[in-house]
């Protein structure tokens, strides 16, 4: 596969740490978090394989284009509108979570509206870029931030303050029945592939996606999931790990790099995760704007001869996310994320049925063309 494909998947796997995924997983630490994680690795890998194989069949075509060719208007317009809202919420959750983090740890004196506005404005113009440029942005930022984030992971794993006994204690709860909340939270790590709905536009050449690639994704995701779940436990204990509002932030504050520029890893962690959060919001909102563009034919809207259509969603994006940043509290945010992850883990496996349908119709259309 092209390396850009892996970036899309990787961003979701890395960025989950600052979303509510660890909170939800650690909440179910005695009620089946481990089995849910194992289940999600299996289901997630299947989803990734099916999605990638499907889009590989139609190089360069986005989901809206495929739907337009194969389904009726009454179906695809509301459906794509719904997808647009989903992607908007995904970006918004990351935005709100990160604004909360910044105000709690980095800039306690700044008003929260200002923090979220600065983030929103820097992201929002990126969302309007062409799809291939978004991918190039992703590449640059990932290259800048990922090595250090990976280094923090390694520092965490090799720290002598990581007590493996806590981790072993946690592992021994593997025999509980999986819980739906924990499953959908860990399933979210695998949904980076869904961005192919739009980003497939970039992949105009048929890609190779075989066993080697599947195994690679499976190994990476297992590593990402176990890091998300076990590192906080190793540093902060098992029985009372639920107490933490931001388990990973507290964990990064527990890592000490004696000979590094900054001893307190927390600040480096926040700064570099700012880059990852930016990417996550950028990808999700880019996809969302593309969906809305398709539904409302935004490119065609003109005012005094100037194309203003594509700017129309922006006030809504900024307004709604600012409203929710001010409105929500930490508990509601976790609840909202939980419900959101749950709805995704129902919707995305069901999407496979739609794919089968599209595939049949496309074959039929192709045959018709040939005749």
């Amino acid at each position, binding site marked *: 596969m092209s390396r850009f494909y892996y970036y899309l998947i990787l961003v979701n796997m890395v960025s989950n740490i600052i979303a509510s995924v660890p909170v939800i997983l650690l909440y179910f630490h005695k009620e089946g978090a481990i089995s849910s994680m194992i289940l999600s690795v299996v289901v997630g890998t299947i989803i990734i394989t099916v999605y990638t194989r499907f889009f590989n069949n139609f190089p360069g075509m986005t989901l809206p284009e495929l739907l337009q060719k194969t389904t009726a208007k009454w179906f695809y317009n509301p459906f794509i509108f719904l997808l647009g809202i989903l992607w908007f919420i995904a970006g918004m959750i990351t935005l709100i979570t990160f604004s909360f983090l910044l105000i709690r*740890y980095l*800039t306690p004196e700044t008003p929260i509206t200002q923090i979220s506005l600065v983030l929103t404005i820097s992201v929002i113009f990126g969302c309007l870029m062409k799809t291939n440029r978004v991918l190039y942005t992703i590449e640059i930022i990932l290259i800048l931030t990922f090595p250090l984030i990976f280094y923090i992971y390694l520092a965490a794993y090799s720290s002598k303050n990581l007590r493996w*006994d806590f981790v072993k204690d946690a592992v021994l709860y593997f*025999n509980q029945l999986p819980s739906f909340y924990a499953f959908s939270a860990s399933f979210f790590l695998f949904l980076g592939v869904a961005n192919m709905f739009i980003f497939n536009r970039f992949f105009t050449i048929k890609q190779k996606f075989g066993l080697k690639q599947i195994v690679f994704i499976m190994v990476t995701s297992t590593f990402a999931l176990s890091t998300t779940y076990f590192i906080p436990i190793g540093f*902060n*204990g098992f*029985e009372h790990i639920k107490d933490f509002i931001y388990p990973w932030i507290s964990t990064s*504050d527990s890592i000490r790099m004696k000979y590094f520029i900054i001893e307190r890893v*927390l600040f480096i962690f926040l700064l570099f995760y700012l880059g990852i959060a930016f990417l996550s919001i950028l990808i999700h909102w880019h996809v969302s704007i593309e969906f809305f563009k398709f539904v409302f034919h935004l490119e065609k809207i003109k005012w005094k001869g100037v194309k203003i259509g594509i700017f129309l969603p922006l006030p809504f994006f900024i307004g709604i996310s600012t409203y929710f940043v001010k409105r929500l509290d930490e508990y509601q945010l976790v609840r909202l994320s939980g419900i959101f992850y749950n709805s995704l883990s129902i919707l995305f496996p069901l999407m496979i049925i739609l794919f089968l349908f599209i595939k049949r119709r496309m074959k039929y259309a192709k045959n018709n063309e040939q005749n």
Partner: protein
Amino acid sequence: MQKTTNKTRVFILLILSMLTLLSGCEFKDIDKVTFISMIGIDQSDNSDKPFKVTVKLYVPTSSFKQSPKPQYAYLTENGETLSEAIRLLETHSDKKLDFGHAKLVIIGEELLKANKEKEILDLLIRRPDIQLISWVAIGRPNAEEIIKMVPKSETAAYPAIFNYFDDNGTESPYSVSTFLFDFRRRMVESGIDAILPIIEMEQEESQFKINKAYILADGKKPHELSSHNTMLYNLLSMNIDIGDLIVNEEGHSFIAKIDTIKSKYKVKVQNDNQVRLDLDIKLFGYVSESKQSMQTKSLPKYNQLLEAEAKKSITDFFTEMLEAGYDPLGFGLKYKATTLPNQRMSMEEWQDAYKNAEINLNITSGLKSTGTIQ
């Protein structure tokens, strides 16, 4: 062509207007902030306001040449709660107090005896600006005096007392160092008990002395470890690899300097909840002092002597720990890490079982040298 230049102009104007946003992110300027280097929490004489908080502030100077001597300011305030005391402290200072650089929290011994450590821990963890990698220690006789003492060896900008804890300056096998997050996990988790170093001071020489420790366990009185036992704890927990064992047996008396230790602990549960602790300890090192002349060819003999001595010391240490039911090495946790949740005994049962545990100590010593002379 005309069109693009117009576009560029609009773009530049937009960017310029954004510059006004850069006026500041309402960050407090650095000259409006004072940084706290350590926090001390004591019991006050006033029973209405039981907490006495003392903070040590760095006094900013423009250059090192101007003040080669360390300079600090101190603030002290009593309060009904810790937050109240801190709020009142802020009224003493014209600048904002920044707790983000505090690297050491000292708790007065009296507060510890009054079992207030949980209250203190809650505030320290709950405040996002206090580092989880700050060290926690016990001040004897109280935290205030420790904080206010500046030893002669202190250089500007880095309090000497930090050197005892970050394995960067002195690395003594007699001093324990505990991070705040480590303190918390040991306090709240069952199966492992917290251990905190005791900072004492020698007034005349104005030096600190950190070679004892307290073990804190739920519902028990804090237990003081002697210097020797603190060293043994450090060796056994593999916090630090160095240690001295004095061997005084069969007419031989020498000091073995341990430089590497490898230990493996296992918890075996037999029938009727009888617990056996399997300790497999390997000591490596050389002889650093001897009253008699030594023979390199009789190193195996010295090894035997060291094994016997280590066995005695370590058995004494464990007997002391087991009798009182303190578990600083985390055998309870080890037990939980190797037993399925539904097959575990309850924590109360474990406490009893631990107290009556049988110790199976196996020591291998590997003295490789008698030092530079025989």
